[in-house]
């Protein structure tokens, strides 16, 4: 379900943003309610720390408050918000790049304990993707942005977005293959069982 698009009768994000520009606090509260979870999700999937994800989602809204006057209705609120979020994320990554090597493993261990197998597989497979392609795929799947929105956000031609998205999906399919085979072996009787034994063993050996 698209963030902000739950009901057709709802006031559009853009109208809310304009209301907010005119000083309506209620409009901001509504925008906050619509985008709080999606923005948190955006940061949570891209950062190790839950607290930082929450903080950065809040900072995105802070930036919106401060820069609302500069918002122009020709940009979608969704892309406007994710644009801010991407900038904050880039800044956060730059900040982390120095000490990430020490911090990341701890968080990952903690995350591993909590996260389900499914999530672990997807996460690890995504990490193997090329950064630009991963970003496009994640924006498409998790943030539910369409090609044009992704193109606007990343300042790329729409066709490039489509090509890279396709490449990313094909690569991810490859990376997820061992998991499917493992699951196929567990399921014992699934349609793909003839392919299971060899690659699963190979995967375990690799791990």
């Amino acid at each position, binding site marked *: 379900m698209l963030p902000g698009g739950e009901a057709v009768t709802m006031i559009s994000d853009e109208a809310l943003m304009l209301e907010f*520009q*005119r*000083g309506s*606090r209620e409009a*901001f*509260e509504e925008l*906050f309610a619509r985008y*709080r*979870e999606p923005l*948190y*999700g955006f940061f*949570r*999937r891209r950062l190790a720390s*839950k607290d930082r994800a*929450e903080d950065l989602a*809040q900072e995105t*809204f*802070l930036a919106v*408050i*401060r820069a*609302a*006057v500069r918002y122009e209705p020709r940009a979608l609120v969704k892309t406007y918000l994710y644009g801010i979020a991407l900038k904050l994320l880039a800044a956060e990554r730059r900040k982390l790049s120095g000490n990430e090597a020490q911090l990341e493993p701890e968080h990952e261990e903690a995350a591993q304990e*909590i*996260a*389900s197998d*499914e*999530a672990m*597989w*997807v*996460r690890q497979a*995504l990490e193997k993707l090329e950064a630009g392609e991963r970003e496009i795929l994640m924006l*498409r*799947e*998790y943030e539910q942005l*369409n*090609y044009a929105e992704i193109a606007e956000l990343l300042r790329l031609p729409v066709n490039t977005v*489509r*090509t890279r*998205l*396709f490449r990313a*999906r094909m690569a*991810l*399919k490859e990376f*997820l293959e061992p998991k499917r085979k493992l699951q196929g072996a567990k399921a014992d009787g699934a349609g793909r069982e003839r392919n299971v034994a060899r690659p699963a063993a190979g995967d375990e050996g690799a791990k």
Partner: protein
Amino acid sequence: MSSKNHSIEHEELMAYLDGELATDRAVEAAAHLERCEVCQELAAELRKMSQEMMGWEIEELEPAEDIPIALAAALEERPRVARKPEARGRRRLFTPRRLAWAGGATALVLVALVFFVSRLSLGPQYDFRLREKPQAQVTDGHADAISAQLVSPNEASPSKSLSGYSGSAGKLEKDEDGEANSPEDDSRPEVPEIPMIARTAGLTLVAKEFDKTRASVEEILKRHSGYIGELSVSAPSDAGRTLTATLRIPAPQLEAALAELKQLGRVENESQGGEEVTQEYVDLTARLANAQHTEKRLTEILSSRTGKLQDVLKVELEIDRVRGEIEQMVAQKKELAERVAFATLNTTVKEEYHARLEATPPSTGSRFRNAAVDGYNTVVEGFVQVGLFLLSAGPSLLIWAAILFFPVRWLWRKVRAELKKNHQQEAS
């Protein structure tokens, strides 16, 4: 997975599944998908992958009843941030609600100003002026209206409404009433109808009778309900005395006071100036109202919400900052109103040149006395100098004397004996 035999490429198929294909191609893709098994398989793969990706769920956020405290604080802060030059910001500045606040705050500040100005700064003279003014015929209307703003409604005499400037004064009073009854009333003026001008004047006089002139200056000041901002008199022994004063005179009476002051002597220099401060005043009033509103809201936030300690500290810091700003602005506004209500007159009164001649030549008696004092001083100074010399050079002189005493005595005796011998030889 070659797409050679396919009318629809795999990438297009993906776009079709994403709903991103143009209609004509989408129709074709749908038809192709119906009959192509490879593509059906790919479509299934892609759908499955999306599902798998959705398997990466994240911890849910705790449901928020309200927006976080830091955001609430930023929202309160926002009008001031966005107020800058943009037209949009301006529009928002004058929303009815804010105008109501601004009106209320202005009224409060004005009442406070009357209180402070009359009680603290000016003392009894100013009270006298406030009571006298309605009767006094004024020449300069705008400043009268401005100073009328300093008068609280119950102090303002009804006769004021008969003057040509009753409009603004009346409106101001209405504002205060309006604030109490209907805070949403946005008909109150944003800008004072009459420009606020801070007037200054300079006057340099040369007076024959200095003391009399000085007394006259004070008398004129009193008559016009002014006060002395600063006054200094210098009286060098070899020149005429000079009085330098900064006089504060109610703006409407500046002309009359100046005319009277000019009668006191020969005008050596005169200047007048005026600075319009309406915009500054209006801006200050609006900013003040905003800041007070912000402070109130921040205080409410702090008392009614809980949040992270860090957020609470942030809000407290913000409140401190806003309060500092408010104090600064109240002081600025008070100073501005006073500059408008009271013109600044820099006066210099110089004593005429002949007065200096009288003072310069000392009498014969005092010249004798001065000579005697000088003589005494010289004698004392001489003794002191000798004493000092002896003290500093004495020890070394004594040593040299001791060293040289015997050789010199021996030499002296030898020379004397020699001379004696010569005398005796001559005599014999």
